[in-house]
């Protein structure tokens, strides 16, 4: 069994990696897949596998752009992390936003304001 879940970036989807040993999850790139449910479904399965024998996760979300259906899938991902954190897992999320995109920054701040059990940090990055 491989100790890493890896998806290469495509023109519409980010690079995704989840290391089952270290519990480091990384999403980077742009995210506007044809079918967000399907794309995030694969990641969810990998996360379920990770949490089946681990109780820590450190996520770096660095998406220059994501569309509205990905936004909902990302929220569901955060809900999952929050649930895990509430039941005792150690979860931290660093969410990097494009400094040139105020609307997305606000959106991420609003989204994350619902969570309290996991550790959260929003950073601004310069894209291009």
């Amino acid at each position, binding site marked *: 069994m491989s100790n890493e879940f890896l998806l290469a970036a495509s023109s519409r989807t980010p690079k995704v990696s989840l290391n089952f040993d270290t519990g480091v999850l990384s999403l980077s790139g742009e995210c506007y897949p044809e079918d967000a449910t399907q794309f995030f479904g694969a990641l969810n399965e990998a996360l379920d596998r990770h949490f089946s024998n681990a109780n820590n996760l450190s996520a770096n979300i660095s998406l220059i752009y994501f*569309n509205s259906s990905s*936004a909902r899938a990302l929220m569901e991902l955060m809900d999952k992390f929050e649930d895990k954190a509430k039941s005792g897992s150690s979860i931290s999320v660093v969410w990097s936003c494009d400094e040139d995109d105020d609307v997305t920054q606000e959106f991420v701040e*609003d989204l994350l304001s619902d969570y309290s059990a996991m550790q959260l940090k929003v950073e601004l990055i310069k894209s291009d």
Partner: protein
Amino acid sequence: MLCYSGYVSEDLLDAIGLTLKVRLNEHVEDRKKVKQIFSIFIELMQNLIRYGLEGPKGVTIKDEDHSGFGLVMVVEELDGYVSLISGNYIKSEAVPAMEARLSKVQGKSDEELRALLKDQIRKPTEETSKGASLGLTEIARRSAKPIETSFVQSDDKHHFFMMKAFV
């Protein structure tokens, strides 16, 4: 700046999106504007892919509810705005539901739209919109001026729906 009319697919979205990015990087100085234009463009295109119908003259439709057909334009206006326009046929019976969805975002302030986005993301998907009333709110939120919309009846079964956003 850009105009496309015809069938729309995700692969086409890639190609046109990339072309638009190159054009924007050459023509629009303000990085913030570039981001807003690109975001609205993607939402408009994905709306066409999901909801755009061929309309009265369509002859090749296999699934008349999912033909993914429409037009999109990105225009540099004389007043300095960049406008993004989409147009597509919809079934006439879908017009009231579309108007209801539009009425939730039209005439709203930025703060109201921001709150609406936060609210809508938590709501289960409406059956008639495959995942994204959120998309409409996002377009309105990113538009620098109120979005403009129109419905024109084209035959007894179809209306042509147009939407215009500004950055």
